[in-house]
């Protein structure tokens, strides 16, 4: 496990056919620093969802844009930051689905942010000066830092 802060960065064109490269990068780093397969899979899926949203919503399929995926490892946690320079949105105003209702009503879509929050220990979204938006997600290496379950807060 890492003893000091380590940074890993990937910059990649905003195309759905690059999602696989992003996933391989993220799960590679996660496993390397000590997450087991199950936890690495969760991080991988959460980052896929964040990047899929950037491709679809922030850049609206403009493939000339880039996505930045940065991973920071320090003593007890992994932080992934997905940055775009496209459209921002009101993260806190997005309605998260109640899954029982969602399934009963046979709804479609709208699971990305819910999944990110379910899979990771912390998820934040920030619109920054200079038209930069970032999704910042944290997963703790040792245990679950007091969280009792996997439900989004």
């Amino acid at each position: 496990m890492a003893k000091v802060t380590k940074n890993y960065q990937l910059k990649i064109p905003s195309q759905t056919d690059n999602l696989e490269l992003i996933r391989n990068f993220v799960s590679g780093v996660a496993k390397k620093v000590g997450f087991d397969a199950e936890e690495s899979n969760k991080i991988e899926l959460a980052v896929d969802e964040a990047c899929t949203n950037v491709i679809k919503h922030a850049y609206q399929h403009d493939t000339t844009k880039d996505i930045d995926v940065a991973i920071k490892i320090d003593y007890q946690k992994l932080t992934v930051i997905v940055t775009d320079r496209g459209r921002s949105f009101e993260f806190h105003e997005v309605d998260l689905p109640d899954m029982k209702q969602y399934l009963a009503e046979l709804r479609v879509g709208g699971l990305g942010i819910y999944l990110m929050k379910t899979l990771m220990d912390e998820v934040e979204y920030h619109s920054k000066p200079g038209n930069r938006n970032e999704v910042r997600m944290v997963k703790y290496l040792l245990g679950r830092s007091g969280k009792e379950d996997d439900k989004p807060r």
Partner: protein
Amino acid sequence: MNGFEVKREDRDQISVVAVKGYLDAHTAPELEQMLQQLVDEERVHIVVNLAGLSYISSAGLGVFMGFIEDIRKKNGDIKLAEPNEKVYRVFDLLGFPVLYEIYQKEEEAIEKYRN
């Protein structure tokens, strides 16, 4: 880069769709097309064999949600079979087993239609 593959095999009134590789925002349209094709042909007794699937994201789940209402209205169904542990965990996390029958073996899913 294992990509994605989708193959169809008709058995009587049942269509078995076998998927392989990863099902994400990039490859979901291929499965969508296949299911659309089946619906167009009124072949609505569908088994999706997930044995070869190594990964699924919400874009992949969305394909199933996109067709289930229409298919059930036509008295059909989408039954799922043989997901590996990684893929099953994603279905399970979201409660999909409430909505979709998921079988360990393709044959079980086929049998269900026949009974």
